[in-house]
């Protein structure tokens, strides 16, 4: 089939299939596939898929165990709840005995504890930090502000609940929640991970 464009050069469209409406197309395609050995990659894919699934089944419990026992939260203090967050990793409550070590870079973290009031101006930064964290990752909304806006729920500048921005696994109530409550939330998240529910 030939077509001529405005500059005068002919544009030739090849590979036009002459189709006979009476004849079904499928048998030809199958024959072509067998002749061109197109089935080889399909078999390869199936085999690698089986191996991958087997490996996954063997290693997933190990990664799950390692991940849930070393949750690294992002060291990110937003408001008054951050004081309780800090106290929770001090000498008295010592969150590190659960393998929870705050890190300063989102690249090293798998847990985002949103501990304070999130304003609309900050929401873009929160999403950026969340997206910078490698998978698998979890989020905890700590305190009433992060859970649902808290005392500032009807304010013009405050996000009414951080679940409007990121997926949250565990909510901790309180204004502010005590460090025990925060550690309890982290342990709850560990249980959710163990049961593969988060």
């Amino acid at each position, binding site marked *: 089939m030939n077509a001529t464009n405005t500059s005068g050069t002919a544009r030739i469209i090849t590979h036009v299939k002459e189709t006979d409406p009476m004849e079904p197309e499928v048998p030809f395609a199958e024959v072509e596939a067998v002749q061109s050995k197109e089935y080889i990659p399909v078999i390869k894919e199936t085999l690698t898929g089986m191996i991958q699934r087997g490996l996954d089944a063997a290693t997933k419990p190990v990664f799950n165990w390692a991940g849930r026992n070393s949750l690294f939260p992002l060291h990110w203090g937003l408001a008054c709840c951050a004081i309780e967050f800090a106290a929770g990793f001090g000498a008295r409550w010592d969150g590190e005995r659960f393998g929870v070590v705050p890190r300063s870079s989102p690249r090293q973290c798998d847990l985002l504890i949103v501990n304070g009031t999130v304003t*609309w*101006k900050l929401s*873009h930064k929160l999403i950026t930090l969340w997206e910078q964290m490698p998978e698998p990752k979890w989020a905890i909304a700590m305190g009433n502000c992060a859970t649902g806006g808290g005392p500032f*729920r*009807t304010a013009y*500048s405050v996000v*009414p609940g951080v679940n*409007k921005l990121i997926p949250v696994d565990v909510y901790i109530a309180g204004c502010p929640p005590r460090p025990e409550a925060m550690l309890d939330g982290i342990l709850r998240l560990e249980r959710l991970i163990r049961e593969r529910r988060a």
Partner: protein
Amino acid sequence: MTDLTLAALLPALESRFGPDVKVLPSRKEVLGVVQVKVDRLVEVARFLHDQGTFTHCALVSGVDWIEHIEVLYHLWSDALKGYLEITVETAPEDPHVPSVTSIWRGANWHERETWDMLGVRFDGHPDLRRVLMPEGYRFHPLRKSFELHEPEELEVKARHV
């Protein structure tokens, strides 16, 4: 002209700018309250800065009186050890006030905040962006016409612009 003392300052303002300035009754926290017509604001500010020793613009803010919007300037004088309050009035729909950033550089962010909260446009401002609210936020929340929205409604409006 030498620096004016307080006793001479307000009469000097009145004699120089005539009916465009109005000395209002003062309060004990400030040296004086002066109401200025919008189009003479920069001249008055320049006069107060150069001859009135008011070298520091401590605050720019505003009040929405519904019939008009009032923009307030608090100027500090080291020599007089006190504040002078200047007010200008603008129309509530599309309020425009000349910027005083050419006289006090420190007024920059104050004017941005007044624009953010009250929607007063400062003509001649070098960088009139929002300060407290994200760029793209549609409201000026300290206006009396701003209704406190249900959070969900506000969220939808604020996120998709």
